[in-house]
């Protein structure tokens, strides 16, 4: 009797609770990603970044959110009001819906769909409507141009991302996120090492898909002022911004699940690396200590206390992460360790992936639209197809002909890289013969 009630509860309520958490926490997480981005950008540009709101700018996201809520929400008069209102909603819902199939930790997953990854990619694709309709509804040249560009860019890079995912799915053999990570656990090696070219293509395609860094053409500040977001202001603009950062988290989680072994601890299988289990608590202790070190240096008394509070909070999280390590606790709640540590590792990998996004954003100038499309169609998509074939061949070699892991996969990776080199060279040669730009 007790069990089926628990079963019933789990089947109905846990997904609901997870969904609520995601919808509530994501805007906050997006806000803090923005803060992290501004701090990292500042650090790379020999300056400090936001320091004024709260100690080290920690309250900046809350201030931003408040500002955006209060700011006036202008709708251009001839704009198509209904579509103008709906467009940002489509983008945000697409982003958040895509989070549902992803598993933050072994416990924390809204719905383990059989078509998990396909669902995430498919729903993510709906985000295009939000951008395209937004550009169309604001009824101005700049927004229209931005909307057209982003539609073309998203459609073409989705193909490349899709094929890169197919490459990894061949290895996993299943679409459900939980089973993919299980497959990586069984293999003992993450798919990034088995299909590195696939990972590289996915990184590039995912940057293009979230309109970021070298590919942020649609809202290229200098030419189209702000692309499709030009006419939006106040909270509606914040929705678009939230959609972009949600997409970034979604894309990072897909990459983590597929290539970086989801919630698996690095070297999960090997016992000699068990000391890595202490890494989460150590990291938390270090960050907490840093907060305490910085606390007295804050100018205002309130900020001092706030810094101390933050330090305590991080220590608390460290303690929670340490709990499953204690043998006594472990015996009582066996599931605690994978749940907590799994979530930590997953979020750590997602964070590093997003840091990679930021890093690229601050070092690279922006691609021109035709270069972007040429890179997409003439380099990435053919390469991803070749990559899928390569992995297929490797699998056949491994399974049918009994070649060992270490020979089959590196061989095909090298073959794929050779093709990539040839494609790049052919691409440069064709660019020289008849450049896209020149006298018409």
């Amino acid at each position, binding site marked *: 009797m007790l069990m089926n009630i628990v079963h019933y509860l789990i089947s109905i309520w846990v997904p609901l609770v997870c969904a609520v958490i995601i919808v509530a926490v994501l805007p906050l997480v997006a806000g803090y990603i923005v803060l992290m981005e501004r701090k990292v950008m500042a650090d790379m540009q020999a300056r400090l970044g936001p320091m004024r709101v709260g100690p080290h700018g920690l309250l900046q996201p809350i201030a931003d959110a408040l500002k955006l809520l209060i700011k006036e929400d202008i709708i251009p008069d001839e704009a198509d009001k209904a579509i103008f209102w709906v467009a940002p909603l489509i983008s945000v819902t697409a982003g958040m819906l895509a989070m549902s199939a992803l598993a933050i930790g072994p416990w924390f997953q809204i719905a383990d769909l059989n078509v998990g990854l396909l669902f995430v990619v498919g729903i993510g694709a709906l985000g295009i409507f939000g951008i395209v309709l937004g550009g169309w509804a604001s009824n101005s040249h700049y927004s229209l141009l931005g909307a057209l560009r982003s539609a073309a860019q998203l459609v073409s890079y989705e193909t490349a991302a899709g094929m890169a995912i197919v490459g990894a799915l061949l290895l996993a053999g299943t679409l459900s996120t939980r089973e993919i990570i299980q497959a990586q656990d069984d293999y003992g090696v993450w798919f990034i090492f088995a299909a590195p070219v696939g990972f590289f293509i996915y990184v590039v395609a995912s940057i293009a898909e979230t309109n970021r860094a*070298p590919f942020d053409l649609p809202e290229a500040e200098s030419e189209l002022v702000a692309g499709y977001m030009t006419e939006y202001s106040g909270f509606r603009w914040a929705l678009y911004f939230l959609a972009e950062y949600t997409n970034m988290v979604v894309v990072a989680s897909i990459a983590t699940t597929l290539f970086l072994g989801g919630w698996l601890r690095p070297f999960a299988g090997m016992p000699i690396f068990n000391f890595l289990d202490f890494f989460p608590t150590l990291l938390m202790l270090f960050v907490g200590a840093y907060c305490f070190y910085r606390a007295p240096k804050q100018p205002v008394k309130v900020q001092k206390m706030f810094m101390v509070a933050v330090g305590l909070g991080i220590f608390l999280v460290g303690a929670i992460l340490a709990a499953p390590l204690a043998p006594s606790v472990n015996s009582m709640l066996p599931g605690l360790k994978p749940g907590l540590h799994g979530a930590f590792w997953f979020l750590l990998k997602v964070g590093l992936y997003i840091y990679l996004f930021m890093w690229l954003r601050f*070092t690279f*100038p*922006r691609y021109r*639209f035709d270069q972007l499309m040429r890179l997409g169609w003439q380099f990435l998509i053919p390469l991803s197809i070749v990559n899928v074939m390569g992995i297929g061949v490797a699998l056949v070699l491994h399974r049918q002909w009994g070649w060992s892991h270490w020979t089959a996969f590196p061989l095909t990776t090298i073959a794929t890289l050779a093709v990539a080199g040839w494609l790049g060279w052919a691409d440069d040669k064709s660019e020289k013969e008849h450049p896209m730009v020149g006298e018409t």
Partner: protein
Amino acid sequence: MADERIPFATHAESTVLGADEIVLNMGPQHPSTHGVLRVKLRLDGEKVIGSECVIGYLHRGVEKIAEHRSYQQFAPYVDRMDYVAAVSNGLGYCEAVEKLLGTEAPLRARVIRVILTELQRIASHLFWLGTHALDIGALTPLFYCLREREEILKIFEKYCGARLTTHAFRIGGLQYEAYDELEKDVERFCKPFDKRVDEYESLLTENRIWVGRTKGIGVLTAKEAIDYGASGPVIRASGVKWDIRKAMPYAAYDLYKFEIPTGQNGDTYDRYIVRLEEMRQSRLICLQAIENIPTGPIMGKVGKVLKPPPGEVYHAIEAPKGELGYYIVSDGTTQPYRVRIRPPSLINLEAFDKMIRGHLVADVVAIIGTLDIVLGEVDR
């Protein structure tokens, strides 16, 4: 139901795709037009078919004011034209009036003038590099460049109290004696500056995206550059080896050794390389100059009231943007009869329409950046 059936709208100019030709207005208020320049772009889809520059939003009538001011009074106005390189504007004007008077500044003054003008050239090029890279999307170089530029502005501030519109020179020489640690400050700036320029190069020069966005963009052949009267880095990038500091040395430039960097095919990438190299050369000039700043008076024998004999003179110097010329006509009174200022930014901008034909909107922004125009000088 109003049955108003209208004939299919006549297209102004049906283009390749048949879609209407869009006239995109990069208005005076635009993040990347380096001031109040308005460009009416005629686009076919993304490609630029033609353009028309509308200028004059910052026109203050400097030349009219000159006719109602005495020679010394007009000197500060000159700083407000190309506000990014005020020191070299001042140098041009003071030397032109000295030529009109037939006198010359003493050697010590001329050497200090060269040092400050070369520092100003580095500062102007740094400002250009930062904003140009920002227009093309690289966010980081801007802050590195401004960090260095800050050092130079500190030196100006120590010397004459102002950072931007310095009015550092007077007709006939200098107003202020060089402050004692001028040599040390300039040396502290110039010594590591070479490595700083390597930092910018490491960020941009081999960067595939940067090369992709600048090579072959906005090409100006040598013949076209001469025909369009381009000057400064724009003409040197097209392969014309000509620098007024070498061709017709003024101030104390003939005392120092430096090369003139030139490019081959006159595209945005070459102009970028030429300006980077010019920064290195200016650093060399500064280092040579501060080794021995000659002693002696800093002000020539020029009276309080300047009444140059009637006549006219055209004196041109190598400003960071190009040849900055002053054509001054005097009628013997204390006020110039006519002052005509040849604005290098305006003349370089003339080649803009030819350079952007066939390019995309993203390149228009890059080409405006590479011409290094300042609207204060374009509109006067």
